């Protein structure tokens, strides 16, 4: 009966409560989307493996390292595989068609990334052909590329038109795997540089290092860096996660701002729901006095007010959560260039739920307190 009363009260002012539910739905949707944007920012970090290290020039990523370091690194205890590569920074037709493209040593690289699933025959074709490239399925879909297509990248860091043949399309083992990257043979780049810019040849932008065991990361990184200490190209070696975090931290201010905005949205909707509940409770003060007169204790009133508030917020929040998925999908397509992985994380849904429940509870604290503390005689005077 009290549940029935709670539900009927929640539907009593249809327009007011519908608008509150609508506001809550939009707020939870916006909150979920902003949290998803933050998650997308960290997608690279999340996708990082604990048993991969990145070695780069200690001065900056803009400075390269000699290819000769490869064998020395390979000899360090704990190192299983070594690959290397360069950020190529090529443009496909137009600058707006941005995607990450790398020249890498492909064999060890693919071994190190088991999360990239490549059909065996495509993998072999890719490794065999020096002018071959491999791309993520999402990127291939974006530009309608198929196996055998010739793709021309216009070099910015390495000038010229680079014609590459698509030999492999990888998919992601995990939902969080970035499927919008482009790889081709570092040897192809290096051979060309030997002819056109010999001073830039035989140099790599980074080394990717596969470890035998993840817990050797700190010791191995230290060993590598100390090996090249006081050399003309000192190194910094860090876990892939730390390396990715370095990029993310460049946008830390933006991420903090997005976090704050998401909390502000929740605070605003909390005030809106609290206002709705205050209005409802004020209108029903006489009814609550009747309940008290009949012998209903404070806990009944608190239960009714909190229950009604939670019903509104959970309904609005539920709608917001349901809408988050299609909206995130559409948004992900629209901003795919910047966020290759744009998935609504389970954690975001939990946060949405917590936010909706917290709004419902906090918004009803003051109205419930008032309803409980107004004297019966005073409450009854509000009728008539």
């Amino acid at each position, binding site marked *: *009966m*009290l549940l*029935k*009363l709670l539900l*009927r*009260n929640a539907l*009593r002012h249809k327009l007011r409560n519908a608008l509150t539910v609508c506001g809550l739905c939009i707020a939870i949707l916006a909150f979920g989307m902003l949290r998803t944007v933050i998650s997308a920012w960290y997608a690279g970090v999340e996708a990082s493996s604990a048993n991969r290290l990145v070695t780069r020039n200690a001065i900056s990523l803009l400075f390269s390292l000699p290819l000769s370091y490869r064998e020395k690194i390979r000899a360090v205890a704990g190192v299983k595989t070594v690959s290397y590569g360069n950020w190529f920074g090529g443009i496909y037709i137009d600058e707006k068609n941005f995607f990450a493209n790398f020249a890498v040593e492909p064999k060890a690289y693919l071994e190190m990334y088991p999360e990239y699933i490549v059909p065996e025959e495509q993998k072999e074709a890719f490794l065999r052909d020096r002018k071959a490239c491999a791309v993520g399925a999402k990127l291939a879909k974006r530009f309608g590329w198929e196996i055998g297509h010739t793709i021309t990248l216009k070099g910015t860091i390495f000038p010229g038109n680079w014609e590459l043949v698509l030999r492999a399309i990888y998919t992601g083992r995990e939902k969080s795997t970035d499927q919008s990257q482009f790889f081709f043979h570092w040897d192809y780049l290096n051979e060309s540089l030997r002819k056109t810019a010999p001073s830039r040849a035989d140099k790599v932008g980074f080394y990717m290092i596969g470890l035998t065991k993840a817990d050797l990361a700190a010791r191995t990184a230290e060993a590598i860096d100390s090996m090249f200490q006081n050399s003309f190209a000192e190194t910094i070696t860090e876990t892939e996660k730390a390396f990715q975090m370095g990029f993310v931290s460049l946008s830390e201010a933006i991420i903090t701002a997005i976090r704050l905005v998401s909390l502000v949205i929740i605070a605003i909707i909390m005030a809106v729901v609290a206002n709705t509940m205050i209005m409802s409770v004020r209108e029903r003060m*006489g*009814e609550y006095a*009747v309940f*008290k*007169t*009949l*012998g*209903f*204790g404070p806990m009944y009133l608190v239960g009714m007010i909190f229950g009604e508030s939670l019903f509104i917020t959970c309904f609005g929040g539920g709608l917001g959560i349901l809408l988050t998925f299609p909206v995130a999908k559409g948004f992900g397509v629209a901003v795919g260039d910047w966020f290759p992985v744009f998935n609504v994380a389970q954690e975001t849904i939990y946060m949405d739920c917590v936010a909706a429940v917290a709004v419902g509870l906090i918004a009803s604290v003051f109205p419930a307190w008032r309803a409980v503390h107004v*004297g*019966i*005689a005073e409450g*009854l005077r509000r*009728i*008539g």
Partner: protein
Amino acid sequence: MTEPNNIIVEINDLSKSYRRGGQILPVLEHISLNIEEGTFLALMGPSGSGKSTLLNLIAGLDQADHGVIRIGGVDITTLGESELAEWRARNVGFIFQFYNLIPVLTAFENVELPLILTKLSKKQRREHVSTALELVKLHDRMDHYPRQLSGGQQQRVAIARAVVTDPTILVADEPTGDLDRVSAEEVLQLMERLSLDLGKTIIMVTHDPRAARKANLMKYLDKGILANAPEATFTECS
């Protein structure tokens, strides 16, 4: 528990005052009153005389400054908030001027409301509600919401709600104050029947001499002091 001499309400030296902006305004002063079981008492007096305050104190809705109120042998001035709420649920039936039904509940559900606090099963509650609605002759309107009922019908539902728990006393604050003459008469007849046929103890605050006529005891309250009703009131009533 009823006293041996059938005194159901015993009030001794009761005082109550309100504080308004630093000033203390006495509302009731040294009131003493005994009401026997089955009495239908009409409490009259001018506005601001303290009638509703006295009714609220008897019903356990307010706390006295001084004095004792014993209902059915229980001194309610010694009870705490939650004990008082429990006591009200078991011992007092309320009839208000503006009916005070819950608008989102049907007549049946409104009458059932006080029974939620009892240990009765759903079936037993249903039986009690049906009996109460039959008593006020509104059994056929049990599924109607208050807005679908006339003022008189709403007040009859309120009476059914007041009697459904079979309380020790019924308190009514201006029960006919918001009704037309015909509806008021119906409600008063019903209350008279509750007193005469079912032996209910009723304490009714009213301005209406016609309503007071239905009572078998009349008291007059003026400036916080209780007295027997003045001759003029009797004359007006008869």
